[in-house]
């Protein structure tokens, strides 16, 4: 796995952005940027380039599911892997995220091991698909 990939962390809580950033650093990923909702994330992505988006669902402004849909509808961003890290844990929400094209789904609260495992699986699938 290339540790130099650029990752955008999207969450309205500064604590959670910092947690994800630190856990990524523990895994060797230091090239990160942050956004606090879907709208600012899209602007950041269009300034790009990024290799991965890790986003919350429940945010003021544009929520994570709409960010995911916007990414998939944007020709320049549509192939970008998206990992949802969220407390939204209803079966229908997970199905909706899958139908919108999510690459992985981590339910809060999560452990560092779970985040590492899910990141590994996202990249493994992408490498296999390449």
């Amino acid at each position: 796995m290339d540790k130099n990939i650029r990752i955008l962390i999207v969450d309205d809580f500064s604590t959670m952005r910092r947690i994800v950033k630190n856990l990524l650093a523990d895994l060797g990923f230091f090239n990160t940027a942050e956004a606090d909702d879907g709208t600012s994330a899209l602007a950041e992505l269009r300034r790009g380039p990024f290799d991965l988006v890790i986003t919350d669902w429940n945010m003021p402004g544009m929520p994570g599911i709409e960010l995911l849909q916007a990414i998939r509808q944007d020709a320049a961003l549509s192939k970008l892997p998206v990992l949802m890290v969220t407390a939204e844990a209803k079966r229908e929400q997970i199905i909706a995220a899958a139908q919108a094209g999510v690459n992985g789904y981590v339910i809060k609260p999560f452990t560092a091991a779970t985040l590492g495992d899910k990141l590994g699986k996202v990249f493994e699938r992408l490498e296999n698909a390449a």
Partner: protein
Amino acid sequence: MSRSQRPHDLPATDPAPATGTAHSRGSRQQVRRLLRAALLSLEEEDQGAWRAHVDALIYWRSQPLVQGLARLAGELARAFGEQPHAGAATDEVLQEACTRLSHVVEVSERASHDTLDRIEQCRALLSLLPAQPGSAAADALASLRAHLSEMTAAQGYQDLTGQIILRVVDIVRSVQTGHEITAGGQHLSLRDSRGHGPAVAGLDPAPVSQDAANHLLSSLGL
């Protein structure tokens, strides 16, 4: 008309129905006195005194009617299941509740960042400790780093509790502004794609576990 504006000849106590008690007898005597004084003012063509005595009589007579109407309105509102209007005092209390809850989110956020600062400092200190690869000390250091990572992840409680508190703030503000609330206490805007926040036992359906989510996603080809 407020009590401070009460006509000067008005009985000092609130009027009571004519029940034959000493109180009501006193009130009737006061009315007779007001009527005689009003008649005398009229005969003497004293318009100011006449108006004051008649105003006092009207005020006295209207009080039971006004009180009765207020009581009737309250009973009708209860019968139709209406809630009493949230007055200025209630608005103030609700605003205070929102401010206090937002303060809790800010305090927990600061505490969580402080903890993350300490974890980062511990990690920096660990990097200064010498350890031969494969030694017991190296294993202990690796284990300590893993614990620090889990301590970092555990700070996610602030995000989860914060989401729930901000949802409560949203519900309280909806009550304050009179926006529509469903029977379950859920604001309509929260039912859309914005998300609902963490599930609360006893209020929300049990959340899907990470394992169940993994199986569900596998079944969908992920």
